[in-house]
């Protein structure tokens, strides 16, 4: 049996990298005393996986973990024990049991929604109005950091929704192994349209609000509902 749980990574711990978050969850599972499954082998580790790595510096409102249990455990018990075992900065919000044959989270993940807070109101007043003109372009070219260096790519097909209000940008963008539009790439493109020089630092708080998958009719729905 597996349990999928939605958890948050709040602002205080947003600078913790993904590997450390993984370890924090593993230690939380150990503290919880829940009957978790372990891998075989000389150095057994807890069978837990995550839908997506959240970058250093970003908060997550609804991140998802998938834990293989050694014994049947109710979702109520799982939530109760885990929330005692996890720091206030990383509490679990909901959980469900899934069948062992349920596809892996990473295989289902298609996109993510973000709430991007532009810290400087002045800059947000220039960025938000640039959304319309940018989205009207044929292509939205921006640079993507990859292992082999910077690559130019068109993010237009990867932006599924984008709105701006006050200091916030609300975006839904592709997040798969093949195609990902990161918040930083979106910001770069928007800066270009707004005429803000590349070297000007625009402070932005990234909050990933939801992870999304596709239902039978090709609609984006929360991953934890699939």
């Amino acid at each position, binding site marked *: 049996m597996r349990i999928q749980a939605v958890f948050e990574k709040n602002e*205080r*711990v947003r*600078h*913790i*990298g993904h590997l*450390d*978050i993984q*370890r*924090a969850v*593993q*230690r*939380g*599972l*150990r*503290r919880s*005393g829940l009957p978790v499954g*372990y891998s075989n082998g000389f150095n*057994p580790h807890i069978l837990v996986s995550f839908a997506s790595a959240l970058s*250093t*510096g970003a908060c997550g409102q609804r991140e998802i973990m998938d834990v293989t249990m050694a014994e049947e455990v109710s979702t109520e018990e799982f939530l109760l024990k885990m929330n005692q*075992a*996890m*720091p*206030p*900065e990383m509490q679990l919000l909901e959980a469900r049991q899934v069948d062992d044959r349920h596809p892996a989270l990473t295989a289902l993940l298609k996109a993510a929604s973000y709430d991007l807070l532009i*810290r400087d109101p002045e800059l947000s007043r220039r960025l938000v109005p640039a959304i319309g003109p940018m989205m009207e372009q044929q292509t939205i070219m921006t640079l993507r950091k990859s292992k082999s260096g910077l690559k130019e790519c068109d993010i237009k097909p990867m932006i599924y929704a984008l709105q701006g209000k006050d200091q916030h940008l609300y975006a839904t963008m592709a997040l798969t192994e093949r195609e990902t539009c990161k918040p930083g790439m979106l910001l770069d493109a928007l800066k270009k349209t707004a005429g803000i020089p590349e070297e000007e630092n625009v*402070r932005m708080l990234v909050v990933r609000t939801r992870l999304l998958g596709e239902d039978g009719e090709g609609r984006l729905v929360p991953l934890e509902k699939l």
Partner: protein
Amino acid sequence: MTDYNDRIEEMLEKVQKAPRYTGGEMNAQVKSWEEAPLHFAFCFPDTYEIGMSHLGMKILTGIINDQDWSLAERCFMPWIDMMELMKENQVPLFSLESRRPLKEFDVVGFTLMYEMSYSNVLAMLEMGGIPIMRDERGEEDPIVVAGGGCASNPEPMSPFIDAFMIGAGEEVILEVNRVILDRKTQGLSREECLKRLAHLHGVYVPAFYRAEYNEDGTLKSFEPVSPEFPARIEKRYVYDFDHTYFPTKFPVPYTDVVFDRITLEIMRGCTRGCRFCQAGMLYRPVRERSLETLVKQAEDLVASTGYEEISLSSLSSGDYSCLPELIRELMRRMKDKRVSISLPSLRIDSVLKESLEETQQVKKSSLTFAPEAGTQRLRDVINKGVTEEDLIEKVRDAFEGGWSSVKLYFMDGLPTETEADLDGIADLARKVVAEYFHVPKEKRAKGLRVTVSASTFVPKPFTPFQWAAQDTIPVINQKQEHLREVLKIKGVNFNWHAPNLSFLEACFSRGDRRMGEVLKRAYERGCKLDGWNDQFKFDEWMQAFADCEIDPAFYANRERKKDELLPWDFIDCGITKEFLWREKEKSDRAEVTRDCRQGCNGCGIQRYKGLCSYAEGKGKQHADTGSI
């Protein structure tokens, strides 16, 4: 969160390793500022990764937070990048938990573990908005206290610290806090508060003591300014070590720290009496925790931290009287929880070997041995009770047991050391290599690695070598050069350290109040984070000595006379000066002193009733006293 929060958030986006400054770990205790009247900032004068590995901090913050009238928050030395940003943005050094500047706390406490962190204390005070010099602090400023191993010679830090806690901090910390709470609630003046602190047993308040010097620079007198203060400061002891406070939980860092595991302090003190070892002298007598207590502590901590590993800590864990039983019991209880026990590598004896093979729980990492000196003569001088046969036998056991990596620790520059002693190091290394090849090929693990490390000897206060001269830097360099030559042996790696840091350490460890001037000057010249190779600015330090017209050789390279008044003589650390001198004379004759388990050597601790079980004939008799 405070007014600085926005600026702090912005800085955190720019620094490397932001989690050093953000807290929020599991079990981090965040108490309400308003509800606890006394606010204690527990400062570790080095980076987060080092400080969070320190057991003493977990014990003391635990004790303070357990009282409903006090809270403790943590503070560490920021890295250079953060320091620069703080300066640029005018953000004072803040605590991890509530992000308050140090100056808003009632007590700011530093733990002094090694001399090379002293400059960080100054940096943290200044960044925290507190005058560095204690005599410049006013009624608004916190009381700055310090404790830890280095407080046994408090003098070099005495211009900066209001009150030192000598000995076991867990015994005295609440008494100190009570007085400081009175300052707050009864409106005591700073002066009155310091006076009350000075009357506490085990507390040294430097403002009430005066040092005078002879023309040759040696100490002429050291006395309290008024007879109301004790002439000697007696350290505090933990009498009932089995029942003394030990936290059932402590913060679990998110990021890698130096010791990221559960540490069980299985005993305090050591019976062996190695003459170079300050900890072995200072933490006398030996006090063991019972197996039941340790197993309970281990279970509590595994449940509250989720750690995967437990290590046993003490000065000489192999001497713990029921070590095999303890390890077996821990392994039995931890097996299902998949917690590994890291063993004191020095006692892989035959009894244990079986149970290890059975459980397969031990990682075959490298084994460590510390013969310290290369010849039997020199080992007798330092009273390191190890023979070559002992060592070789244990190495053989290890190689037969599937280990292939061995570390050997030595010191260079020990008193009376000659070239023959250095050559002895190479001989030992060669014998260890030969032992490996004696094990049949199909039985031994592949990849022999013998690492020989040599550190430079630093004479320490409260040891029989407190009168000794440290070798000068050129002499150490020559010796290390010689070692590099003779240690060109296949399969052997040699590690050494430039002696500069050890030289400075020697100045501070036996320094007097004037070393405080040098420290201040060096800090003004930009010295900080001296324990970090890439930050250590030796030339600036030497310039600081020159600026103050103080000769470092006076502290490091001078042999003291028997009747010289030493800057730390007013501290009573249990062991007497007479005992130390006796030991020094025996050392001159290369005569060994027996292990306390074989009989009391009259070190001075026997004066305290109910403290040393061996002195009172209640010690557990132990057959094996020959292990390393």
